[in-house]
């Protein structure tokens, strides 16, 4: 109950400080492994944004935008994993990666995949250069079962 009130209060007394500071931005990358824990697909960005989105598609997304909204939620989970790590945030990211792999949304997956892991890469600007920093790497998990598979 106390936890629920802690979650509710920022909505009832909001801070409204949108985009006050442009903080390092997370990207989720995942890697696929076989049963022997050998990497069969190296780090790849999870749900990379398309090169171009037409204005008509943007208009359509005013009414139907589930994938993008889910990606924004996963960005929140990624930020939470760094700021105040919980199993929930890690599970939420794993669940979506697993769903995409199982549903074969991503192309060209090797056939012998059995396990998955992900990492969080944060991009920030230093002077005029962009820097990338890996700030979290998950345990390996089975792609079939949800249980943690320590190696």
């Amino acid at each position: 109950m106390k936890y629920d009130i802690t979650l509710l209060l920022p909505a009832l007394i909001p801070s409204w400080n949108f985009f006050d500071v442009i903080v390092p931005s997370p990207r989720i990358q995942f890697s696929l492994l076989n049963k022997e824990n050998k990497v069969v697909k190296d780090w790849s960005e999870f749900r990379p944004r398309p090169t171009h989105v037409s204005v008509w598609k943007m208009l359509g997304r005013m009414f139907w935008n589930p994938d993008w909204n889910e990606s924004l939620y996963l960005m929140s989970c990624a930020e939470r994993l760094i700021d105040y790590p919980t199993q929930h945030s890690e599970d939420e990211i794993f669940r979506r990666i697993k769903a995409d792999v199982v549903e074969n949304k991503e192309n060209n997956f090797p056939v012998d995949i059995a396990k998955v892991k992900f990492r969080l890469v944060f991009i920030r600007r230093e002077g005029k250069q962009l820097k990338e920093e890996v700030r979290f790497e998950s345990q390996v998990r089975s792609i079939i079962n949800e249980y943690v598979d320590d190696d």
Partner: protein
Amino acid sequence: MTIELAIRLTEIIMGFAFAQQSLEHLRSSSDDRMIFIPRLLLSVLLVVGFYSVWVIGLLMILGLVMLNRYQGPYNGGADRMSLLILFCLCIASFSPDKNWQELTFGYLSVQLILSYFISGWVKLVNPQWRNGQALLDVFRFSAYPVSESLRGWVKYPRVLLFVSWAIISFELIFPLALLSSTSLMIALLIAACFHLSNAFIFGLNRFFWIWIAAYPSILWFQQRIFVTI
């Protein structure tokens, strides 16, 4: 605008916004569908005005369930505004006293004003926003642009500097729009266009619909305060 009309319009627009959000979740896991199928049905009932008081109460309970399910908001500010409007509607609906209704809707409209003013203020005090660097960074490396081609805007720093100051200026002067109903209508139109562009460029469609849902409260508030004065 009467308080009753403002409440009803808020219910209709929020019902539509919630229905849109809920539809997007129907492809999710079965656990999520247990939340969003009832939410969709309740949203439709809210739009048609069927037992609105109880529907709002149930939507508030579902809102708390969602907060728990996602350990916070699913869509940041859009979900927080959803809960704020829902909470204010809840108080207004269950309160038999018109003064309470006015107090709650007054609170909602003040929060709407602050949502623009404070957003402008925190940008104004940040030198990175004042020199255009912050907006350049949003396009250059943030997770928000919906396509890689949109990152090409970093080639136009002067345009982004102008846009930065246009956003800061508009957000800061927004409260002055309350001085007349005409200026308020114009300001809300500009604000809606701002949210629409954010929805197109950054995919923040939920912000657009839910912020619009709070507009009837400020239209009522402006008339209530300035006509009384």
